[in-house]
């Protein structure tokens, strides 16, 4: 029997909706359910593929499957894969439901807390009710959060942010740290190690959601002015209240990363964390072009994503692709196939200054140096993040 992952409780802050005994128990169950799937069920797919599906394919085709599509065409008929998939989908639905319940209990009161940040960290919030939510976010509710990032149920609503903050903790099974901030913290750590002389004065985080990844940059670069944008107002309201309560000054504004109202060359560092795969073909190009416009000469953009499929074993790509069709992530597959050098070049960057890297998870590094307890789930790239970026 494998030891359970160390339970990493989520850090409390004032904006986080309180949970009752049973609500917490329900979320804990979903976390354990997901953990169980990752540790004990997920891997069985490979066994089924290697021992059964692939040999059968080789017998009939005289070669191994070449693409993730060929793998998929076979695997969808496998009862094991069907069971795995239905369980994973169900866990996702249970996750959202378990995180919605505490929010629904008394939403007006929770929104009141959000409306009055108790502490003044010096950040700000600028909303634009006229901003159009991109079609790629209204067509389906991304990763199955009912109502998506943007739906509002009452004036001043931050419910989507409340649900999201807790859900990310459950989804990542606590492995993104008590503040769900591992992506931002990892990039900040990477910057400090690999570019010790790079001292950004103005930083912009694109598609920041509730600011999980935004805040670590303030810690890494205490002198920097930090801006963060998102299209969804409920996320930003929550992000603002959260940052203020955690004592971090961030200037949040509701803007589309494809076209912002910031001035040319006004940032040294522009980051995004799992934003690109939730946009669309045209949008991704617009965003890179906008990054180019907003960066000063010598500045840097960095986008964190899961690794591209290029060169990946077709079975691995097939499994990584699960979310495209089964978790309302329509752009996932295509975004993983875009050639990043070309993307940079089209956006106006010098492709010679383009970089791609797998970087260690800050949380994992911290845990490893603290204790031997950390088991490192295979979730989120097994303790590594993929980054793509470009210097200007």
């Amino acid at each position, binding site marked *: 029997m494998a030891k359970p992952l160390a339970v990493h409780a989520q850090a409390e802050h004032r904006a986080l909706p309180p949970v009752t005994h049973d609500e917490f*128990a329900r979320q804990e169950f979903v976390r*354990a359910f997901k953990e169980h799937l990752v540790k004990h069920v997920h891997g069985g797919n490979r066994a089924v593929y290697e021992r059964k599906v692939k040999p059968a394919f080789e017998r009939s085709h005289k070669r191994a499957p070449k693409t993730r599509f060929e793998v998929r065409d076979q695997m969808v008929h496998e009862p094991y894969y069907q*069971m795995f998939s*239905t*369980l994973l989908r169900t866990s996702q639905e249970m996750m959202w439901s378990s995180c919605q319940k505490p929010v629904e209990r008394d939403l007006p009161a929770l929104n009141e807390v959000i409306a009055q940040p108790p502490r003044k960290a010096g950040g700000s919030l600028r909303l634009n009710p006229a901003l159009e939510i991109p079609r790629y976010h*209204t067509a389906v*509710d991304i990763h199955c959060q*009912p109502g998506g990032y943007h*739906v509002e149920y009452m004036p001043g609503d931050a419910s989507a942010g409340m649900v999201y903050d807790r859900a990310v903790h459950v989804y990542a099974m606590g492995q993104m740290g008590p503040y769900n901030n591992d992506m931002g913290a990892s990039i900040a750590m990477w910057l400090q190690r690999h570019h010790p002389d790079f001292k950004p004065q103005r930083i912009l985080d694109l598609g920041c959601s509730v600011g999980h990844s935004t805040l670590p940059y303030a810690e890494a670069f205490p002198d920097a002015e930090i801006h963060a944008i998102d299209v969804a107002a409920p996320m930003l309201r929550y992000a603002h209240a959260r940052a203020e309560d955690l004592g971090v000054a961030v200037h949040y504004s509701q803007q589309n990363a494809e076209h912002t109202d910031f001035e040319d060359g006004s940032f040294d560092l522009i980051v995004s964390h799992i934003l690109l795969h939730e946009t669309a073909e045209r949008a991704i190009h617009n965003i890179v072009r906008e990054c180019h416009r907003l960066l000063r000469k010598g500045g840097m953009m960095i986008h964190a994503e899961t690794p591209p499929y290029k060169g990946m074993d077709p079975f691995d790509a097939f499994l990584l692709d699960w979310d495209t069709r089964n978790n*309302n992530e329509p752009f996932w597959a295509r975004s993983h196939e875009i050639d990043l050098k070309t993307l940079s070049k089209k956006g106006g960057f010098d492709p010679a200054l383009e970089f791609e890297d797998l970087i260690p998870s800050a949380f994992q590094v911290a845990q490893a140096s603290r204790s031997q307890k950390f088991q490192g789930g295979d979730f989120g790239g097994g303790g590594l993040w993929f980054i793509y970026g470009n210097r200007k």
Partner: protein
Amino acid sequence: MSSAIKLKRRARGERPYFFADPNVDKVIAMVMGLAGEVAVMRDRLDTLERLLERTGALQRADIDAFRPDAEVVADRSAWREAFLGEVLRIVEIEVEALANGDQDRYDNAIALVEQRDVTPPSRAAGKNPARGKKVAPKAPARAVRKPAASTKVNKAPASGAKKPATRSATKKQAVVRRQPKPVAKKRARR
């Protein structure tokens, strides 16, 4: 306690089903939903025990050491029996129907009430009940083609032997049947 605001429960976007029969996916979702609530209840019980232990009202070891006396055993057995009776009710009604002689196909009841004139059993038997044009088109199709679904009361071995002949035979019965069952009413539209 709860605010009037209800959050959306369904994520926009077509829900994938993975098994050839989507009901399999649904049953699994139900099982996991139940498992989740069992876990919640278990946590609650655990909390209760710990709190009681903290206040000195209970030692948890006492729970493990607890041996029910005959009366408690009897109480619990009775409860369990009733509980299983509820849960497995669906299995029992089949046998009950047999015991009551209530083996008519439901279609016969439809045929009975949809007849325009009250005709003697011998005339009604074997006739298409839909000859009156007011009859909904669905009913006759069902009466003619569909064999009894597995939960239907009359799908019992007893009547199985006479299958080809049953239609007229049971129709006759339907007409003379004495006791309409509430069960049948509940099942009226599926």
